[in-house]
C-alpha cells in the first residue's frame, strides 16, 4: 500500500467547489499551512471550513477567507488577536458562521468518524446555543442532543508519516488532527518526516493508516504563529 502523493498541489487537486473541509490545528499549532496554501492556489468556491478558529493574520485559514473561497465557517472561537478578515465579512453578512462550543465541536467530529449520528451532552443546556435542539433527561439531569459532523475532506498536519498513512504528532499540534482524520471521506495528511513502513513503532502510532487517504511530505513546514509574527501574507504581496 502506498498513499504517498508528490506535492501539496497534487494532494488537494480534487477538492471542488462547495466542498466541506475540516482543517486541523488550534491557533497556529498543527495547522497544515502548505496544504491550505495549495488549496488557495486552486481557487475553489463556496467552501465550508471546519476548524476551532476563523484564522489569524493573513496566512492559512485567514488567507482562505481573505481570498474569498470560504462560504461558511464552523468553529468555536472566530475572534482572535488579528481577526479582521472574518470579522468584517461576518458583520457585512458575507460569510456564514455556525458557532459550536469547543468540546461539542470535538465530540461531533469524533462521532462523525465513529459512526455515531447523534449524542447527548450537558454542554450548552439552557443557553442560546441549545435553542431548537432536542433535550432529554437522564438520571435527573438535562442534556442536549447534538449531531455528528463529517466532511468531504480533512487537511491535517502530522510529524511522522509512513506510506500506509500511519501518523504521529508533535506536542500540542495534535489537537483536532486525529479526530478530523477519522471524520472525512478523504483525509490528506502533510507530514514533516516521511518514513518507510515500519519506521514508526506500532506502539507509537497515534492515527492508524486506515483513517488516512493521502500522505504528502512537507519537510521543514511553516508554522502559522511564526509566520504571523513575521507579518507574512499569502499569496505574498507583489511589490
Amino acid at each position, binding site marked *: 500500500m502506498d498513499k504517498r502523493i508528490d506535492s501539496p498541489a497534487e494532494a488537494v487537486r480534487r477538492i471542488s467547489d462547495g466542498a466541506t473541509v475540516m482543517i486541523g490545528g488550534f491557533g497556529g499549532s498543527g495547522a497544515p499551512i502548505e496544504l491550505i496554501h495549495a488549496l488557495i492556489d486552486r481557487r475553489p468556491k463556496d467552501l465550508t471550513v471546519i476548524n476551532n478558529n476563523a484564522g489569524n493574520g493573513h496566512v492559512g485559514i485567514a488567507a482562505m477567507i481573505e481570498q474569498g473561497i470560504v462560504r461558511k465557517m464552523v468553529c468555536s472561537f472566530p475572534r482572535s488577536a488579528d481577526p479582521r478578515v472574518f470579522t468584517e465579512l461576518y458583520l457585512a453578512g458575507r460569510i456564514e458562521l455556525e458557532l459550536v462550543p469547543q*468540546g461539542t465541536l470535538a465530540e461531533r467530529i*469524533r462521532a462523525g468518524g465513529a459512526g455515531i449520528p447523534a449524542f447527548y451532552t450537558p454542554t450548552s443546556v439552557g443557553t442560546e446555543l441549545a435553542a431548537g435542539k432536542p433535550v432529554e433527561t437522564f438520571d435527573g439531569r438535562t442534556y442536549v442532543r447534538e449531531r455528528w459532523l463529517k466532511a468531504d475532506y480533512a487537511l491535517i498536519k502530522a510529524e511522522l508519516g509512513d506510506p500506509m498513512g500511519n501518523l504521529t504528532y508533535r506536542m500540542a499540534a495534535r489537537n483536532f488532527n486525529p479526530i478530523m482524520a477519522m471524520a472525512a471521506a478523504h483525509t490528506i495528511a502533510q507530514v514533516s518526516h516521511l518514513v518507510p513502513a515500519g519506521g514508526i513503532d506500532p506502539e507509537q502510532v497515534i492515527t492508524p493508516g486506515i483513517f488516512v487517504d493521502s500522505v504528502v511530505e512537507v519537510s521543514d513546514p511553516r508554522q502559522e504563529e511564526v509566520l504571523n509574527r513575521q507579518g507574512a501574507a499569502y499569496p505574498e504581496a507583489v511589490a
Partner: protein
Amino acid sequence: MTEQLDKIKLSNAQIAWRAAQDLETGFYVNLGIGFPEMIARFQPEGREVIYHTENGVLGFGEAPKAGEEDWDLINAGKKAITLKPGAAFFHHADSFAMVRGGHLDLAVLGAYQVAETGDLANWSTGAGGVPAVGGAMDLVHGAKRVAVVTDHVTKDGQPKLLRRCTMPLTGVGCVTRVYTSLAVVDVEGGRFVLREKLPAISLDDLRALTGATLHVSGPVADLVVPEV
C-alpha cells in the same frame, strides 16, 4: 461609594492569590484564559497541582523565556508554555472527555454575571459583534468545583452577583464558589452564602453591592490578602 470602594477592594492579582489558597495537592485544574490564569502564579508552596488546557496538554508549567517559545507548545489562550515532568499530550475529544467526564477537580473562570442559582454569564454581552464561545460552555460542566474570579461590581458600580443573569448564559446552575474583590461567596441550594469578607466593608454595605440576598450561615471570616 465607588471611590471608597476602589481604595479597599482587592486587585485581580489579590483575588487570584485568594483563589490559589484553595488549590489542593493532587488537584487536576483548568484555569480559564486571562484573569484566572494568574492563579497558577500564587500556587502555595508544597502543593502539587496538575494543570489541564483544552488544546490537549496535562502538566504544563510557566511560560518559557522570551525567544525560547515553541509555538507547537501552547495553551488554550495560545500562549507559549513549558512542560513539567509527567506531562501528557492528547487530542481534543479526549481533552473534553476529561472536562465533561468529571475528571477535573476544579475549573476557574471569569464572569460578567453570576446568579444565586449558580448560573454563569461569561461568553457574550449580547451586544452583537462576532460571537465566540470557545470551551467555556464545556468547562462549566463536569469539574467537581466550578469557581469564578471577578470584581464584585462592574466598572459602573453595578452588581455582578445577581438573582438572575441578564446576559446570555454560559451554563445553568454550575458555579459553586465566587471569589470577588470584596468577598468569598459560596452558591448553596440556590442561595449566595457569605464565607469571607474584607474587614474594611460592613455587611450592610456588602449587601448593598450585591444584586441578590447574601445569606450568612455560620461564621464569616475576614478576607485578608497580602499585597502581591
